[in-house]
């Protein structure tokens, strides 16, 4: 069994804490995800998938419980340390791509490396390599508004991979794409998983796409109600 990347114990997330309308979104999630896994998270809208994903991605802190990323307790880190974790360990892929406007594909891919303090030369070299990996070399100098949705998402995936992250987090990456393009993006994830050995967590509403992954976690009302196909579960 591969070493664990994510270890969550009883993670609770609440909003409006101390106010009459206090909301508990995650009700004590315990979860372990290992290196090289390709996991999909499914569940109804509003069930808390994105909330969980934000905690995994160190964008947010749990209200209660512990979360270790590569053995580091994320809940104790300050803003700068969280920035560092996001920069080095996490690659985000968003539903709406979120490329920086008026900044060409190459510069977008360079951005995480810029925040990592890499030299211009190294950044450029790696960015070109990544664009080649997602088959976007020809569009390197295009601005985001000159790219199709699928192309934008390829650039976004290249950008997410820039600093060799431990996990690639994708929140409905095909949600804004037609199904054919969505499948192509999915193929790209498979390729990254197989060829680069990247650990991938994917939120999707498409059961078809979820079926393609090794492990499927189902969330309902802030609880994990099913976890199938994973290494731990295979033990049972």
């Amino acid at each position, binding site marked *: 069994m591969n070493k664990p990347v994510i270890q969550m114990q009883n993670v609770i997330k609440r909003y409006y804490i101390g106010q009459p309308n206090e909301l508990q979104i995650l009700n004590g999630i315990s979860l372990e995800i290992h290196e090289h896994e390709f996991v999909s998270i499914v569940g109804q809208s509003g069930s808390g998938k994105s909330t969980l994903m934000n905690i995994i991605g160190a964008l947010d802190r749990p209200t209660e419980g512990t979360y270790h990323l590569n053995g580091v307790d994320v809940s104790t880190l300050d803003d700068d340390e969280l920035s560092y974790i996001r920069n080095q360990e996490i690659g985000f892929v*968003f539903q709406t791509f979120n490329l920086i406007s008026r900044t060409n594909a190459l510069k977008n891919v360079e951005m995480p490396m810029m925040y990592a303090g890499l030299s211009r030369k190294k950044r450029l070299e790696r960015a070109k390599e990544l664009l080649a990996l997602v088959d976007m070399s020809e569009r390197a100098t295009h601005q985001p508004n000159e790219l199709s949705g699928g192309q934008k998402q390829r650039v976004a995936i290249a950008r997410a991979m820039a600093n060799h992250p431990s996990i690639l987090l994708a929140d409905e990456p095909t949600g804004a794409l037609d199904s054919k393009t969505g499948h192509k993006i999915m193929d790209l994830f498979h390729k990254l998983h197989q060829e680069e050995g990247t650990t991938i967590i994917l939120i999707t509403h498409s059961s078809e796409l979820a079926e393609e992954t090794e492990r499927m976690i189902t969330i309902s009302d802030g609880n994990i109600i099913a976890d199938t196909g994973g290494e731990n579960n295979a033990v049972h």
Partner: protein
Amino acid sequence: MQFIENLRLAITSILANKMRSILTMLGIIIGISAVIMITTIGTSIQKTLVNTFNSMGSMNYFEVYTSWNYSEEDFGLTYTDNSEDRLSVEMLNQLVEQYPEYFYLNLSDDVGSFPLNNWKKQQISVNVSSITNFENLDDFPFVRGRGINQNDGNGLKQVMNVSTLFVEQYFPAGTNPIGQTVSTEIGDFVIVGVFELPDYYVKQMYNEGQQDIDKVTPVYIPYDTARHLLEKEQEPLYYADVYYYPEQDIDMLENLLNNYFQEIYKDKPYVQIEVFNMQSELGMINTVINVITIAISVIAAISLIVGGVGVMNIMLVSITERTKEIGVRKALGARNSAILAQFVVEAILLCLIGGIIGILLGVAGGVGIGFIAKFMVNQFYPEYAGMFKITIQPSIPAMLIAVIFSILTGVFFGYYPANKAAKLNPIDALRYD
């Protein structure tokens, strides 16, 4: 490295909203250009004064003159000019004896204008002045012979210094004037030196197109000789110039002179000796101009605050518009400090561009006004045009201060919005639409 990146981002962002950027800069542009224009005019006036006075010869002397205190009721009625009360050569000589390390004299006087007949029996006119020392005067370069000095006066020698113009008028071409005698109403004088007339003198004294033969030229004879020939050896003076050696504390010398004369005149309350020095007068004028320039500049600089608030406002708008982008940058690993730097650099660049445009406009305005002033003097007062050394000079320190001030305005008014951006919660920023 980050800085270059931030600069690139700032330029992209400013160029993306050109019109908005320019409107934002307007306050800064107006403030800075007003300050620069005012300081340009101020320094130009100062430079013009200094250059004008310098061109009029050295100023290292005090004008010392007799002045009567009339009371209101008997103004000019009861008092008759009693020559015993006036400044005397003895007083001046004693002053120099008392303070030889500070002062020296070079007394001069108008003797009068005399007609002379030249070699062709044409009539020309000379303006005779007497002077103790006509040596080493920067404005009157000698082309032949020597200047009159104290020894000539001591020996009551009848020698004369004349101009090159006089030589042309009086002698046949090619004559060596040194050693020649010139006969005047008050006596015969031997020419010992020939000097050249300075430009400002020529411009001031002679009209354009005037025939050389018609020009009245100045000639100089020894001071003591003149007083002797005119039998005015005991006659007191109305005024005199007391020279001082360079590099002295002028205020101290002025006090010294005032005290010296007050001691002599202490029993004569109705009369006194006044002391006037151009250099200290000029210093005072400069101080006044400086104060006025600074005062107006400070008032103009207040508009910088308005400009700064404009910049702050637009930065807040820009940050709100780009909330999502800030969230994405944070998700990609940007530290708060990186976001802060990005927006502060943008605010600084905005102000700096505004400041530089302001400096250029201000210099253009100030120089333009200077040229208009120059043109007006040349047009309406051509007789003074040669005398006034109008010098247009933008103030370099003011420009440097303006650049620093623009940067500070950017930092000051950019920090709050940038900090607001930096402190954004990444999730809230990402969810923003």
